[in-house]
């Protein structure tokens, strides 16, 4: 019994040492602390964060992995460092095909991160041209291509052009999203419509 206890203590000590090394590895290689960025923060420009928060605004569990790993590299400049996510302030923007919804989450540095088909953050609407960020992908592994992004308050609509035919993306609370119908589809461009009744076409990079 004494021998068994002795062995268990060695086993526990080995496990503790392994956990200690693991804890040392994680922040050393991947971690970083947030820094303040310059310019008006995106969070201030998004009125959705002034609305009351409900249960449905919580980021779903299937996004927790992406949220947990969202740390900029050590020594990264403020221009690429969103900072720690404020998960208790997330908001659901819209339902979206092929995902559990489109969500926005502010950060300690005033950035806002969009959790749609993928994850991307914005420091300030002044950082972007054409009033939008533009994200798109093939929807791998089990969905169809998509187009998504942030849109400033100057944007009134985003059309997605596929095979020469334009259709309107969903736009709500400074976020737009569109899921294409077929796996083989690929958007050629988006046309951004502005409050001053102008519009601009932005070409999409080929697949």
């Amino acid at each position, binding site marked *: 019994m004494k021998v068994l206890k002795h062995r268990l203590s060695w*086993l526990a000590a080995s496990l503790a040492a392994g956990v200690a090394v693991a804890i040392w590895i994680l922040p050393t290689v991947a971690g970083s602390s947030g820094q303040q960025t310059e310019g008006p923060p995106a969070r201030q420009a998004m009125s959705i964060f002034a609305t009351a928060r409900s249960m449905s605004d919580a980021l779903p569990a299937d996004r927790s992995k992406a949220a947990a790993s969202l740390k900029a590299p050590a020594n990264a400049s403020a221009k690429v460092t969103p900072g720690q996510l404020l998960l208790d302030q997330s908001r659901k923007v819209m339902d979206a095909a092929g995902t559990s919804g489109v969500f926005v989450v502010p950060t300690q540095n005033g950035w806002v991160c969009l959790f749609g088909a993928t994850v991307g953050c914005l420091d300030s609407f002044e950082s972007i041209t054409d009033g939008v960020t533009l994200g798109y992908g093939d929807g791998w592994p089990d969905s169809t291509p998509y187009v998504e992004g942030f849109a400033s308050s100057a944007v009134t609509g985003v059309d997605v052009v596929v095979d020469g035919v334009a259709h309107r993306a969903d736009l709500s609370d400074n976020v737009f999203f569109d899921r294409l119908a077929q796996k083989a589809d690929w958007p050629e461009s988006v046309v951004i419509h502005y409050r001053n009744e102008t519009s601009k076409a932005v070409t999409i990079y080929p697949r």
Partner: protein
Amino acid sequence: MLAQIKASLYRMALAACVVAFLLPVAVAYASTIFTYATGTNGVHGEFNTTGFAPRDLNRVWHNAGYFWSVAYVNQLGETYAIVTNSANPTSQTANTTYAKSRCTNQNDNSGTTWTCQTTQNP
């Protein structure tokens, strides 16, 4: 006979200790995010991990407002899991079994340092 049993019990205990030490380290290492390319500017630059491995993540941190793409590349040289974004980071969070990770600078001439990261040892 008793000595032999005692010796093998000690060997088993030693092996259990080694496993107990290595398991959390291996888990941390496997889920750790590595940088496989970093720099400034270099529009149209394409950067790959040197080897193939299971991947949980592929992303590039960059100045918001400039376009980057990330993708996985299989052993046939085919690209898939393509994401292009001007938000930061441009990221692919889907798992793949065995691939190189690739990041491509579409138009980032901001002068801000960009960093391409993936999981598993490049």
